């Protein structure tokens, strides 16, 4: 089994093997920055009419930011619970693909998997997948997951409590935190031509489908950018040698 994804093998980092303090520092950086944005979620959710318990339950049990924002947005817009949940679920489907990449890298024991699964999100995946070996990947995943989970839930609570005090949260620019987080996570992944083409097509697809498709679906349509670019790029990658299969 290959522990290290192809993308990382070809990356030319100035430091080949980061020391543990560097990994912890990166993980804390992501965990703290994103964890603090739970405040924006708490405020948004309270503004959408959800109660304190409901908002905190979302952060504790769903724990995937985009899905949480999508759900409260849909509920505020008057969507029925199943349509609202479907949109949030579609957004959460991407976590399955993160898990697909992480499972080989982290090599988690079967008993730990159900616990670790709850922390499989954009940020923990980005930090773990940026590490060159299993040990630092596990360290990065754990530190990011723990920091983010604690802070995200704490700041969600504070956000609900502070919502009334803050007034119009958009005036504070808090609605720009989400896209900035996604952009910061995306930037290091844009190392090659294929990655950039996929990102560009993803943006195009989501912007084209946003006005015509129900909430949650445009992002899934954008996911098609990956297979489309791979297909267009050539059939070389599709013709695998028969002997390579197990």
């Amino acid at each position, binding site marked *: 089994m290959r522990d290290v994804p192809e993308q990382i093998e070809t990356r030319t980092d100035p430091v080949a093997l980061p020391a543990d303090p560097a990994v912890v520092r990166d993980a804390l950086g992501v965990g703290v920055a994103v964890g603090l944005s739970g405040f924006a979620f708490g405020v948004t959710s309270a503004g959408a009419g959800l109660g304190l318990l409901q908002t905190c339950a979302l952060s504790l049990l769903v724990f995937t930011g985009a899905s949480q924002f999508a759900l409260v947005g849909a509920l505020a817009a008057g969507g029925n619970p199943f349509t609202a949940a479907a949109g949030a679920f579609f957004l959460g489907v991407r976590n399955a693909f993160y898990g697909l*990449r992480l499972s080989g890298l982290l090599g988690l024991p079967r008993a730990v998997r159900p616990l670790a699964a709850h922390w499989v999100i954009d940020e923990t995946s980005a930090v773990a997948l940026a590490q060159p070996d299993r040990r630092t990947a596990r360290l990065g995943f754990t530190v990011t997951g723990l920091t983010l989970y604690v802070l995200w839930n704490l700041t969600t609570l504070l956000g609900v409590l502070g919502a009334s005090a803050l007034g119009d949260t958009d005036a504070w620019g808090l609605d720009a935190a989400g896209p900035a987080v996604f952009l910061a996570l995306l930037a290091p992944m844009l190392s090659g031509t294929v990655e950039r083409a996929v990102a560009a097509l993803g943006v195009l697809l989501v912007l084209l489908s946003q006005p015509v498709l129900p909430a949650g679906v445009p992002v899934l349509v954008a996911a098609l950018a990956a297979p489309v670019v791979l297909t267009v790029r050539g059939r070389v990658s599709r013709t695998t040698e028969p002997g390579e299969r197990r």
Partner: protein
Amino acid sequence: MITWIAIGVTAVGCYLVKLLGLSVPAGVLERPLVRRLAALLPVALLAALTAQQTFGDGPHLVLDARAAGLGAAALALVLRAPFLVVVAVAVAVTAGVRAL
């Protein structure tokens, strides 16, 4: 009650897809096409989410202060600013443009 149903369905659904990803047999991962696809899907999704949350307003597309904030964030990224600074710059510039 309706809200609690939505929360419950979302929580269960989102947890199960996370667990599913981690539980897929290792053999599946070793197929080159699947590996490449799994590496590229987050790129497509993160790019889409960035664009959607910058230009989306419900079903509509708008160009507002968030675009300025994201531009500033992109600049901060090019200048290799730390994660927290990138997010803070986006929030501050967006708030600043709205205050104008």
